[in-house]
């Protein structure tokens, strides 16, 4: 049988207004982005008020690409977010309490005060807790997929995010190469926000485009406009599908700008104003909201209600967390081993 003659594929940023499933996905993504943005704004406030333990690293401007990763994954997939992935975390299923509890030092958080903030995760639910060393999560995600391959388990995907700066690490290289050799369903998303802390791209790499690295690993490369939620949903969706379908590792490079400092201690004064004023400097959240309005997917009242709802979730989570106890060193067992009987009994404390 001949294949039916298909209509030319539609670009997702000009979607069929009747395509409810796309509109629904888009709105769902937008609402996670919104929740992430409001959560982070709250965290920034709390930080300035001295209420946060440790540093605060935010994802403002990176929500679209992050949420697109999280929303493209399914239960059973693996996700290793990095420091600017609050939106992706929510979309993948993280509860807002996991977030607030870690930042505000509640002992009920997933890391129990032992590790903090962006380092939280729940490996038993497929969300890996990052260590700080950039690039170091990529081989770990690859390993989860390798294990599944060994067991003949197919159809799941592992995704992880990294910055432009992180592509310079040996870990990035070794892990992508290993994943390529094993043709693992790994999606590596580079959020190219033009800077690594203060270091601009031209001091970080010399290739024309980071996506040019894909061919050197023999894997698929994708470029995406990180300010456009529609583009992010389409490209990440495609990359994740291809990985899931046996297409091997996928390298996705999103272009965007971080719209905050490296951390909340940083005023980002080093960012080139020309970049800020370029299309890279557009706010993906504002653009997404505009897109919803322009597409008539929701009216002002609905938007306000969503915002209200998100703000309420944030306030509730913070209020709950604030009433929770801090970790108590006397209740710590101070044993790094799972096999407690093998701890070295000699004490020099």
């Amino acid at each position, binding site marked *: 049988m001949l294949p039916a003659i298909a209509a030319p594929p539609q670009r997702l940023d000009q979607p069929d207004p009747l395509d409810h499933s796309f509109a629904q996905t888009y709105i769902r993504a937008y609402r996670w982005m919104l929740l992430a943005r409001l959560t982070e704004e709250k965290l920034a406030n709390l930080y300035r008020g001295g209420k946060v333990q440790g540093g605060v690293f935010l994802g403002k401007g990176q929500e679209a690409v992050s949420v697109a990763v999280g929303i493209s994954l399914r239960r059973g997939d693996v996700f290793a977010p990095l420091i600017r992935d609050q939106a992706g975390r929510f979309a993948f299923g993280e509860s807002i309490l996991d977030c607030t509890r870690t930042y505000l030092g509640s002992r009920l958080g*997933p*890391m129990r005060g*032992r*590790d903090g903030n962006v*380092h939280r*995760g*729940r*490996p*038993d639910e497929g969300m*890996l*807790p990052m*260590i700080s*060393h950039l690039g*170091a999560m*990529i*081989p*770990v*995600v*690859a*390993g*989860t*997929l*390798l*294990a*599944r391959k*060994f067991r003949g388990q197919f159809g799941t995907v592992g995704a992880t995010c990294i910055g432009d700066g992180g592509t310079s690490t*040996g*870990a990035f290289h*070794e*892990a992508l*190469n*290993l994943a390529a*050799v094993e043709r693992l369903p790994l999606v590596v998303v580079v959020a190219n926000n033009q800077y690594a802390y203060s270091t601009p791209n031209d001091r970080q790499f010399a290739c024309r485009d980071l996506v040019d690295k894909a061919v050197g690993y023999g894997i698929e490369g994708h470029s995406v406009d990180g300010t456009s939620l529609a583009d992010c949903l389409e490209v990440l969706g495609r990359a994740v599908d291809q990985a899931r379908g046996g297409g091997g590792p996928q390298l996705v490079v999103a272009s965007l700008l971080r719209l905050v400092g490296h951390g909340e201690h940083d005023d980002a004064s080093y960012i080139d104003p020309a970049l800020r004023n370029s299309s890279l400097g557009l706010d993906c959240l504002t653009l997404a909201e505009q897109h919803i309005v322009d597409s008539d997917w929701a009216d002002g009242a609905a938007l306000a209600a969503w915002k209200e709802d998100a703000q309420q979730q944030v306030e509730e989570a913070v209020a709950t967390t604030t009433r929770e106890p801090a970790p108590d060193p006397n209740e710590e067992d101070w*044993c*790094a*081993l*799972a*096999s407690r*009987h*093998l*701890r*070295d*009994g*000699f004490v*020099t404390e």
Partner: protein
Amino acid sequence: MITYLEAIREAQARALADDPRVYIYGQDVGAFGGAFKATKGLAKEYPGRVIDAPISEDAMIGSAIGAALEGMRPIIEVQFADFSTVGFNQVVNQAATLHWRTNIPCPITVRLPSGGTSGAGPFHSQSMEALYAHYPGLIVMTPATVEDAYSMLLEAVAIDDPVIFCEHKYLYYHLKADALPTEATPTGKARIARAGRDATIVTYSAMVHEAIACADELATEGWEIEVIDLRSVKPLDTDTVLASVARTGRLLAVGEAWPWGGVTAEIVARVATDGFGLLDVPPMRLNAKDTPVPFHPNLWGTHRPTARSIAAKLRDLLRL
């Protein structure tokens, strides 16, 4: 007769046979059977479970951690212990912290062909146990016998924590036993390799045999030297060491690694703090010299402790 190397192969064969979660990953471990043949024939016997890795120690070890999270029991062969410096970060920062941070275990075994052999030079001879033992969250095994090479490797795979398995290349072919053991001393217990009452040598790995040779030599002069084989340097069995020193009153700690820090410092420090009153005379240490491991056999033979240099030191100790 079975060699130390064959025991390592047999332990891996048995682990693969008994536990479907086990796989072996490392450079040339597949059809080739590994640079030292520690996985000889295993790729054929266990298809798809003994796999060649690219030259990427960081990714090899990182991937093992991910696989462990999925419930596997990976064995990583690093071709020489010395090359684990480039996979160091994944071991000490990722594997070693995972359980403490998340309550999820990280049961990986990293096999490090360790220690000096003649002509191997600065980059194929290192003893790295002290580096790993310094970090919380790791078990560091240093088997000195064929039996331990076998049973401790099996235990390493069974343990829910990351294990650094320092197997000594000098013992690979030199050391033979009649048969594989049917029973095993549990990890964390040291072994009295030779009983004695005049002095205690505490050591591990290949140096156990130098110490025994030294003790044999001194026996001809009427001295009875006790030799303790630590078996694992973390956990380190302080009780067995203290009990021995309680009997002999004299302690010499011997290690093949470099002098600053390391196992000998830890042993002497523990005995000094917790067994001070047991010591009749000041304790002593004997290590390699504080330079890279030399290539030329003439230099190498002087760089590391030997039965002879141990005996010289011990005579000083006995004379006190």
